[in-house]
């Protein structure tokens, strides 16, 4: 428990110990890792100085063949084993992907239960595993850069996700980090991360909009920045709309113009690579040459003007503007009330995007920051804060929201909203259900996410079976189901029967995402491949946790030991000693068990300390008012 880390700098037992934490922007096209060094956030480049890691992994019979630029270079020659833009498949089934992208992708998909997988030379890979391989590459880069040959341990990472990611996509991202051996301090919404980086660097105050058009996702967030508080007022977007779609549209046009049909996967990939390059050239030039040298013996091409490109992609741009206006309405604001518009994501380099956003808000968007790096920098700042490295006065609070409503299936296939979109997280809501048959002992509950009225049009998140309801006459049972969304935007559900107090067991069957068994299997697979020792890693993890727990308990006792009576104090002291003893051994199960005991024993202490800190804070406010 109770590691209420309210310690002031200098009061910590190890005041000069800087805990290494990183921010990771796990992007559709490119990924980055950043950290805070001597007070300033910076992106950690690879050994040749390149800041980006293309989000591409190539597999061969031995596993990962290449990651990043090296993998990207192989995507035209080996498209089936070279997985790019895998973020678009996170938490998605085959049907979703077919509906969104058609049959155009070069991969050999397998419709695994829950989430689509891809057949590669290294076996069947889930998008979670591919993402884990990207994260592992970033982790290795960070550890190399921060600790060098001496080795060292990362405390954890803040990993960014599109604000518009639903529960399944968020869960999949967290699973990928777990698989890569990364302790996730927080999942952070990408536009919010950008707002932190921008806001802190510019001491910004007021209403800001963050327009984030990445490789595969679009987010718009409206935030209120004041006195160190970043409050998200509303968010909106499209988790399947990004720069990739502009490429695809241009490639499809070029194929039509040149009357090319039945392209092979290699040729398809060639067209997309050229389309992206042409798109980038059109950001500076009014016209460019679209090369169609699909076969080595023949060179051909098309002339494409910026005007043509803009006309082709107008619909995509309009979608982002519709979502932007909706987010403003949700925040109850007009465009004129927005003080600044921050552009994020490589796709915002397109001149038509800047112009359209500028027109909507009636002001020139802010572009004095690198749209590729700002998300990773913000994530690094938040990671540094969460790792406990904040300095006095250099402190802020983040209040984010849930992007899509959570609901339940009711009679007739209708979705009833339980938690509306744009609710500040963490948030919870309880709902009561009753039985409709005499003696009924089980009940099925279907949780969905989305804004549409029909369940069929929303995303199915999970189906729950409530079992063990005591037999009663129809309508007598009162089953209270609590939906809790945590600060990562992730949902958990618990249920209890109110008249008897019996806790109904909840069987969670995620419709998308992975079951714990799948994660365990993947972990085992990856250990076997890497020759790693799962036991040693589990022990190390428990030891780190035990040390954190002991430190936090000690700090809490030093500060607020007076809140405990002698008996309570003795119990906590005894368990602390017991944990120290267990931690000197090598049985990770034993360490975990004592951590659990100490957690339970300090729960009440944690609650009392929380009460005290709230009372003190409000009392302090009153004194301020009096002195004014």
């Amino acid at each position, binding site marked *: *428990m*109770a590691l209420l880390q309210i310690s002031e700098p200098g009061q910590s037992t190890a005041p000069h110990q800087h805990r290494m934490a990183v921010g990771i922007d796990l992007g559709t096209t490119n990924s980055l890792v950043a950290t805070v060094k001597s007070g300033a956030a910076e992106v950690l480049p690879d050994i040749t100085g390149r800041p980006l890691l293309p989000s591409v992994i190539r597999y061969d019979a031995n596993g990962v063949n290449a990651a990043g630029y090296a993998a990207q270079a192989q995507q035209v020659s080996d498209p089936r084993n070279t997985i790019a833009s895998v973020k678009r498949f996170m938490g998605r089934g085959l049907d979703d992907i077919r509906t969104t992208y058609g049959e155009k992708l070069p991969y050999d998909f397998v419709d695994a239960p829950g989430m689509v997988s891809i057949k590669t030379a290294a076996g069947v890979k889930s998008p979670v595993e591919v993402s884990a391989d990207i994260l592992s590459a970033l982790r290795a880069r960070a550890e190399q850069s921060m600790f060098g040959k001496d080795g060292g341990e990362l405390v954890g990472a803040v990993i960014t996700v599109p604000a518009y990611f639903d529960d399944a996509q968020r869960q999949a991202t967290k699973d990928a980090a777990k698989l890569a051996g990364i302790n996730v301090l927080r999942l952070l919404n990408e536009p919010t991360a950008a707002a932190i980086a921008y806001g802190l660097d510019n001491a910004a105050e007021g209403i800001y909009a963050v327009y984030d058009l990445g490789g595969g996702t679009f987010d718009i967030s409206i935030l209120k920045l004041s006195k160190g508080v970043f409050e998200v007022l509303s968010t909106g977007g499209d988790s399947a709309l990004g720069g990739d779609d502009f490429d695809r549209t241009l490639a499809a046009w070029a194929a039509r113009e040149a009357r090319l049909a039945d392209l092979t996967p290699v040729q398809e990939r060639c067209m997309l690579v050229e389309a992206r390059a042409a798109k980038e050239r059109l950001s500076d030039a009014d016209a460019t040459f679209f090369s169609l040298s699909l076969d080595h013996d023949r060179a051909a091409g098309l002339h494409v003007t910026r005007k043509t490109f803009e006309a082709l992609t107008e619909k995509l741009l309009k979608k982002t503007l519709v979502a932007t206006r909706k987010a403003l309405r949700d925040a109850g604001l007009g465009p004129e009330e927005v003080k600044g518009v921050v552009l994020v994501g490589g796709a915002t380099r397109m001149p038509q995007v800047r112009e359209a956003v500028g027109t909507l808000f009636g002001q020139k968007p802010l572009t004095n920051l690198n749209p590729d790096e700002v998300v990773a920098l913000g994530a690094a700042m938040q990671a540094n804060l*969460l*790792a*406990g490295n904040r300095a006095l006065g250099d402190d802020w609070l983040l*209040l984010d929201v849930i992007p899509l409503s959570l609901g339940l299936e009711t009679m007739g296939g209708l979705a009833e909203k339980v938690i509306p979109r744009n609710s500040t997280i963490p948030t919870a809501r309880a709902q009561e259900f009753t039985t409709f048959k005499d003696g009924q002992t089980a009940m099925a509950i279907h949780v969905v996410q989305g804004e549409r009225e029909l369940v069929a049009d929303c995303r199915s998140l999970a189906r729950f079976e409530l079992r063990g309801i005591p037999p009663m006459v129809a309508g007598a049972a009162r089953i209270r189901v609590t939906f809790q969304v945590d600060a990562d935007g992730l949902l958990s559900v618990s249920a209890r029967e109110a008249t008897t107090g019996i806790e109904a067991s909840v069987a969670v069957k995620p419709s998308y995402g992975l079951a714990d068994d799948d994660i365990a299997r993947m972990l085992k697979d990856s250990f076997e491949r890497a020759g790693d020792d799962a036991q040693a890693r589990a022990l190390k993890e428990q030891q780190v946790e035990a040390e954190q727990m002991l430190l*936090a308990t000690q700090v809490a006792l030093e500060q607020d030991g007076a809140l405990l009576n002698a008996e309570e104090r003795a119990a906590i002291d005894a368990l602390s000693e017991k944990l120290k003893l267990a931690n000197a051994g090598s049985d990770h199960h034993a360490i975990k068990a004592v951590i659990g005991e100490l957690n339970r024993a300090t729960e009440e202490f*944690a609650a009392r300390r929380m009460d005290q800190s709230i009372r003190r*804070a409000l009392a302090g406010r009153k004194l301020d008012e009096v002195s004014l």
Partner: protein
Amino acid sequence: MATNFSQNHFELFDLPRGFAVDMAKLDAAYREVQTQVHPDRHAAAGDAGRRVAMQWSTRANEAYQTLKNPLARATYLLQLRGQDIGAENNTAMEPAFLMQQMEWREAVEDATAAKNADALDKLLRDLREDKKLRYGKLGALLDSGADAPAVEAVRQLMFLEKVEDEIGASLEALDA
């Protein structure tokens, strides 16, 4: 213990119980509380500490949203006084209000069918003006302890909020 989950929302933020709430004070108190309890402040804590933080932060969000929104605040005040809004089992409404209600709905439907965004915008402004007057009256009713008429006023405002949502949805559909 002085602070606990049995406190009402006003007590949590140390504000006087009543319909009139000083928004600046509410905002400041909410931020003070979140600064203490938000899970980001307890990232290094163990499971129990993180759980306590999540519960408190959830509680603070719920209290803040309830007090910030005038309709939710009025409903909550009436609940504290033992008055049930009873939207489900008590649907008797003043006939004059029901008439006006139907007129609003028809106007929204007509403007939506005609794809007339300007007309919808005007309806929205008129509706907000009407709501403002009603909230003023509701506040007076609550202050004077006239609970039964206050319940009636709350239920009428619930209808109007729904109409406002419908106008918003229509404007959104026109925008897409």
